[in-house]
């Protein structure tokens, strides 16, 4: 029986955290947010140098849980780059044994793959992507090389850390990886939900930590504001919202790794619940900060925006709750 992080897992998270602290401090995020790029090569290479690209290789000795732990930290740092798409592309290509795609270049991060939600035109980091991993429960999984029937219209993105573009892909373009009926299609679609939930968990934890730290340092009426019971309880509720939900993400990832029958439903529940938590936490964090939290410079809004992205991406919470209700046979 083991249902908490191993020291190795904690160490990996610390490594990712440290790397992003070095290569993706708030200053870089500010500059990136006001720039025109939809990808940051420096921080990306630093992450890939840790070997994240290979987490979902069949022989990595790791699994979706470890991938989720990495995505959690990426959410914490509001990291740029299509980490979720990259990890899933590696998993899909490796599992399919498709030889036409340079797996090594994906694992190393030299080539960049982004995730396209079947039926949606909005794609993060599309301009930088070398590959588009289209995951569509109804149509299967395809991997389309950039330029092969892919047209991209850049947009002014709400989430400044993962700018989206409007993408159109010609029918039948690129490589077919898995058919709709192939169990791997649903497996990858579910895995995507778990990784977004992990990103949201990291974001919710981050804005909670920022709020708690601010409440300890900031004084009003001659007191650190964290002493005031009302704010204290609001912060307690932020923690109560995020911390127990952590195990929900763990279980969804574990259920996928252990191939448990409730894995698909757990993925839907985790995506719905955590994205709601992140949105609530981001709002509560701005309120807990007061004026400064409302300024651009302070940066809290980057997570508020990332919460909006996570919530809308791959289907809304209500959509996945409806799926979960069906899957439960209600």
């Amino acid at each position, binding site marked *: 029986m083991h249902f908490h992080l191993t020291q190795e897992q904690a160490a990996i998270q610390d490594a990712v955290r440290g790397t992003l602290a070095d290569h993706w401090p708030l200053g870089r995020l500010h500059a990136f947010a006001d720039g025109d790029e939809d990808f940051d090569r420096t921080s990306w290479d630093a992450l890939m140098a840790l070997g994240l690209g290979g987490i979902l290789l069949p022989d990595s000795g790791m699994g979706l849980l470890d991938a989720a732990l990495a995505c959690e930290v990426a959410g914490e740092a509001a990291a740029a780059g299509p980490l979720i798409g990259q990890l899933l592309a590696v998993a899909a290509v490796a599992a399919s044994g498709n030889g036409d795609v340079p797996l090594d270049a994906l694992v190393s991060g030299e080539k960049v793959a982004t995730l396209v939600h079947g039926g949606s035109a909005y794609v993060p980091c599309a301009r930088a992507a070398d590959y588009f991993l289209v995951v569509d429960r109804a149509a299967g999984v395809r991997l389309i090389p950039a330029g092969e029937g892919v047209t991209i219209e850049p947009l002014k993105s709400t989430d400044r850390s993962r700018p989206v573009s409007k993408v159109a892909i010609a029918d039948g373009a690129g490589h077919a990886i898995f058919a709709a009926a192939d169990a791997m299609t649903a497996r990858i679609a579910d895995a995507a939900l778990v990784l977004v939930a992990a990103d949201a968990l990291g974001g919710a934890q981050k804005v909670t930590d920022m709020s708690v730290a601010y409440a300890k340092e900031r004084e009003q009426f001659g007191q650190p504001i964290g002493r005031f019971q009302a704010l204290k309880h609001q912060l307690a509720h932020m923690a109560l919202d995020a911390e127990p939900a952590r195990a929900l993400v763990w279980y969804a990832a574990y259920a996928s790794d252990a191939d448990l029958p409730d894995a698909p439903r757990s993925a839907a529940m985790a995506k719905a619940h955590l994205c709601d938590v992140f949105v609530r936490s981001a709002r509560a964090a701005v*309120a807990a900060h007061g004026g400064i939290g409302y300024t651009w410079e302070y940066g809290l809004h980057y997570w508020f925006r990332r919460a909006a992205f996570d919530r809308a991406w791959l289907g809304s919470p209500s959509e996945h709750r409806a799926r979960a209700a069906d899957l439960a046979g209600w």
Partner: protein
Amino acid sequence: MDLSYGEAAETFRAEVRAFLTAHWPPAADLRGADLKAFIRAFRATATEAGYLYRAIPKAYGGSEQPVDVIKAQVIREEFARARAPAEIGGNGMNMTVPTLLEKGTDEQKELFIRKTVAGDYVWGQGYSEPGSGSDLASVRTKGELSADGSKWIINGQKIWTSQGMQSTHMFMLVRTEPDAPKHDGITYLLIDLDQPGITRRPIRQMTGEEGDHTFCEFFFDNAETPVSWQIGERGQGWYVSRTTLKHERASIGSADGLGRQFAKLVELARDVGRIDEPVIRDKLAQIEGFVLSHRYTSFRLFSCAAAGEDPGPVALMMKLLLTEIGHEMALLAQDLIGEHGFVEPSGAGGRGNRGPRGPEKWLDQIMGSLGNSIAGGASNIQRNIIGERGLGLPRDLAMSGER
């Protein structure tokens, strides 16, 4: 109960309409300076007629009318309907003038009111400072007398000044007696912002909103203002700033904005094709329960004001109620816009020209709804006020020493 304004009001309404037909609009080809002049003249005539600046003495450019909430409301409605220019609003009319009328010297009234009414002086508020938050009395901006005692020399920083880029003047709180108790060391000053010792900078907000219309920061580096521009006693500024007059402030209009916004939310649900979903219909109706409570309570407040009766604690609840409704609307809107939420609306938060804006425009409200809870005095302060002034609960220990 009766929501009609009554015969007298309707007679008055006819009179106002006749006036407007006679004096508004300007000729269609009027432009630029000529148009400006026409509007200035129109306001003057409307003031003579007793429709504008009713709370302000004739001596200072007002029409000095007896308080009449209903008439004021009729005037607001008719001027709005005719799209005619009403009073020049803003901090000047809402804060500076009432404060001057109550606490200013004749010289000060003479000096500032007329020009403010005319719109020549635009006033910025100088209360908040970085780190002061809801604790407005924690003023750190320093004011020291010049050697000859004729001027205040001001050093420090003010923040969250609306209309900051347009302001010509500021009313501000400065600490002049560093050794006095917190609330007794503050002086209330007026100051001309056009001087080398003052620099201003717009604050970029989370919406991305920046530029001329947004809030500003002001930096004071040996800025000066004559001692004759000080309002009230030296060291008594905190109490001067608590002065607020409520001439004809009650307005049914307050609820209209919320009603319009809710109607737009229903439209959004329709536009994104989800108006038929039971979950959405139920949530909309739930929110509308609060929207209507706010609307009809504003009727109640208006009615009490008209009758000169005290509405009781409910008056203290409107601000928080509005904030909480905005929060609920934001959460539903975020659900409704779905993938439109990926795209930042053009001219987010801006007030200038905009391109066509789709459902994504709700991101402004989704973020802006958080602004309310901050601008309107942090919600926790509002809750304290309702609990303490409204329900008579004992003062907060940490703050009771403070008030």
